[in-house]
């Protein structure tokens, strides 16, 4: 190829959370690392600087900080027989682009999975028998344990200045934290953020229900902080432009402020932006990657050779690149064979809105992305699944990332959409309502998977990724059960009106409605190469010098936001590369 760059030790695709973590760890190990990022370079100054960053029209309508769908998107269908259509306008999930990835415009809810989440299938079988799991449900145990990841959860929280309250330290319960969490080695780096009204009322409602509320661990700094890489954070000022927006204040942990300041100084680190990776190149027998091909800013095809290829392009795009490059065998839902695309899952998100009178100052325009109050009494082993009638639990929370009128004003159901009545309702509700959310787990199923679309192409002529997904009865039941509990709790708070959007039976996945960017699975980790794309170190079973880091590795999704787990897995994988792979390149687990 005309444009071939000198071979490097490692090439990383994507400069979001996982790319930054891997780049840090591998440059620490002395490797020469090149990161290829499809979007622009970005930093707090000038890209997230006040006041321009808080322009709601640009942030929430033009979606200035998110990926444009013009070049790359996915197609979606509900079942195996229908024709998928493109995700044309941003709705259900919002991938990022540019340096920092979605990690620059996330909210900051920073959870660890529960110990029992790691062994979901065996835990459910043990508690309720194998027949309790529906026959099409393809949930699996993670091939790692909570204990394996504890040091990495801990380190990532310290990198992020996560603000929270520990519930269990070295096996000892701590007042004010989550009594059901896995044991931590130490307290959070920072104490919890202050409570806005909804978070405070959640304590009252939850306690009356007999639950154990605790502060949501939030990577929005509650106080000045210096992380282990000497990167500095300032206290969050509750600006109310957190989700979808870059932080104006060095308060929300992001690759940009928490890791890149160190990387940018390093001679063995090179960041190339506007570098769209098209595929991973394999050697003639397909067992080893030789590097990647990308389009540079001028639209030229460039080949970057490397000993190691790390896919850090976000869960969906990692799977897309694997399918396009012929890494592993594509999953076939008819035969159950193949692994790439298998076990796609999502998040079961629902909302309850509470409306109050003028005397209640809910002030939803105040917001701290990840902070608020939640509880685990209906999650993990706390929930009696046999009684509830579904697999997987969830959490209910009060979280207030900040509301503004362009982002939408919730009005009581039955309100007209326009005219004087709408104006009155919007004016009445804006400062005097808030919401609770129900974030449910989402199981994986044989028929929910990712593949290449047979028809639609992206701006580079490659087939789009096709998402085969719909709500299963199990998740619909979970939604109804958990929203029911949230409404029950909300009643205690005496709202003047309230509304909940539990999924109705037979309801289909709606791609127009934002639910979360927690797209999981598709290239999952496991202990059997027949049913997983990656081994326990996120290394491809098929091409040993390719690692795919991200939520694509989750065999199914739990009731929490994914990034705490994604970061921990990234550090776990990096450790294996540094301590094992570099000494002896080859499969780290024998198939």
């Amino acid at each position, binding site marked *: 190829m005309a444009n071939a760059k000198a071979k490097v030790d490692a090439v990383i695709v994507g400069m979001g959370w996982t790319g930054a973590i891997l780049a840090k760890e591998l440059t620490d190990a002395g490797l020469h690392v090149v990161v290829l990022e499809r979007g622009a370079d970005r930093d707090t100054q000038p890209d997230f600087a006040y*006041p*321009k960053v*808080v*322009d*709601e029209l640009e942030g*929430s309508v*033009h979606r200035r900080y998110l990926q444009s769908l*013009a070049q790359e*998107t996915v197609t979606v269908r509900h079942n195996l027989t229908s024709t998928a*259509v493109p*995700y*044309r*306008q941003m*709705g259900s999930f919002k991938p990022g682009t540019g340096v920092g990835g979605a990690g620059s415009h996330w*909210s900051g*809810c920073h959870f660890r999975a529960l110990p029992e989440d790691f062994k979901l299938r065996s835990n459910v079988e043990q508690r309720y028998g194998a027949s309790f799991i529906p026959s099409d449900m393809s949930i699996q145990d993670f091939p790692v344990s909570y204990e394996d990841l504890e040091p990495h959860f801990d380190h990532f929280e310290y990198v992020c200045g996560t603000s929270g309250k520990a519930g269990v330290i070295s096996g000892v319960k701590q007042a004010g934290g989550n009594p059901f969490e896995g044991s931590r080695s130490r307290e959070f780096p920072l104490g919890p953020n*202050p*409570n806005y009204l909804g978070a405070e009322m959640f304590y009252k409602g939850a306690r009356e229900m007999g639950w154990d509320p605790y502060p949501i661990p939030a990577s929005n700094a509650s106080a000045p902080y210096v992380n282990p890489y000497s990167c500095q954070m300032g*206290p*969050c000022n*509750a600006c*109310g432009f957190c989700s979808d927006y870059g932080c104006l204040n060095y308060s929300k942990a992001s690759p940009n402020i928490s890791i890149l300041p160190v990387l940018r100084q390093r001679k063995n680190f090179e960041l190339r932006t506007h570098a769209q990776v098209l595929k991973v190149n394999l050697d003639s027998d397909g067992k080893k990657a030789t590097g990647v091909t990308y389009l540079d800013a001028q639209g030229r095809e460039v080949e970057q050779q490397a000993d190691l290829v790390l896919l850090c392009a976000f869960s969906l795009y990692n799977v897309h690149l694997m399918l396009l490059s012929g890494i592993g065998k594509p999953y076939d839902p008819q035969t159950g064979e193949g692994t790439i695309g298998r076990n796609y899952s999502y998040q079961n*998100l629902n909302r309850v809105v509470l*409306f109050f009178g*003028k005397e209640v*100052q809910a*002030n939803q325009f*105040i917001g701290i992305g990840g902070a608020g109050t939640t509880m685990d009494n209906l999650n993990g082993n706390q929930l009696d699944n046999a009684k509830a009638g579904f697999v997987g639990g969830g959490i209910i929370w009060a*979280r207030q990332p900040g509301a503004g*009128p362009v*982002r*939408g004003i919730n*009005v*009581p*159901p039955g309100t007209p*959409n*326009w*005219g*004087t009545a709408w*104006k*009155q309702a*919007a*004016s*009445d509700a*804006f*400062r005097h309502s808030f919401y609770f959310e129900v974030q449910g787990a989402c199981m994986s199923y044989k028929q929910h998977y990712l593949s290449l679309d047979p*028809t639609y192409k992206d701006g580079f002529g490659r087939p789009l990724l096709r998402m085969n997904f719909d709500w299963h009865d199990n998740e619909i039941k979970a939604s109804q059960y958990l929203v029911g509990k949230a409404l029950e709790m909300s009643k205690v708070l005496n709202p*003047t*009106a*309230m509304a*909940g*959007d*539990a999924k109705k039976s037979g309801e289909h996945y*709606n*791609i*127009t*409605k*934002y*639910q979360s960017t927690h797209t999981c699975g598709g290239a999952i980790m496991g202990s059997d190469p027949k049913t997983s794309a990656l081994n326990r170190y996120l290394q491809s079973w098929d091409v040993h010098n390719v690692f795919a880091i991200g939520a694509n590795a989750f065999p199914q999704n739990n009731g929490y*936001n994914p990034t705490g787990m994604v970061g921990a897995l990234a550090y776990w994988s990096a450790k294996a590369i540094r301590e094992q792979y570099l000494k002896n390149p080859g499969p780290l687990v024998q198939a």
Partner: protein
Amino acid sequence: MFDDDTSPARRDFLRKSLTLIPVVTLASAGLPSSTFAQTPASDAKQASTAVPATVPGDYKPTFFTPEEWAFLVAACDRLIPSDQVGPGAVELGVPEFLDRHMQTPYANGGIWYMQGPFLEAAPEFGYQGRLNLRETLRIGIKAIDAYSKKSFSGKAFAELSQAQQEDLLKSAESGKLVLDDISSKLFFTNLLNEVRNGYFADPSHGGNKNMGAWKMIGYPGMRADYMDWITVRDKPYPLPPVDLSGRRG
């Protein structure tokens, strides 16, 4: 996370799928006049023919034609009228916003996937058409005006009475109005969405003059610093809005 979303489909979804569980009847408490701007009620509604609302300033449309502009001014006035609750869309410059917004890459489909084939799909899959926002508004306005002229002896939408305009908008909202070239519902949702965007976005985009819409709902605008107010419960947030240029409302 369910971050608030601005898509018309999303709003439609929220409105339809939230089941009301009344606990106490919603008290119809008035707005405290100290915090919220009040504007005199418009009495135009009683008039048999709509009194054309006047656009503030001397803005001359550069995207919309005079006919389209007349339609938009009338439609803005129906969708967000000037009344006792607060200022209307026309008086806050929403037509100017629309004219300017249509000239952005966004309105040209800049962030949407616009490749074919264009298949019909269930509403859960959202917009699957090939028109960008500009075209949707333009084609929709033309179609409604044509319908109006045909049904009301040659009168364009802007020349109808307020009641007739409201009826037409309602039947477009429900999709009952059958138009050549475009789904009336698609047009209506995009129009309403854009009118709301203009009403509530920063004044630098052309609407929300003097932050009138923010004052009405009590939004402090672009202050983006509430550290000292997170835990205050006993009094309403006291400060007026500021906009992106740093002006105070």
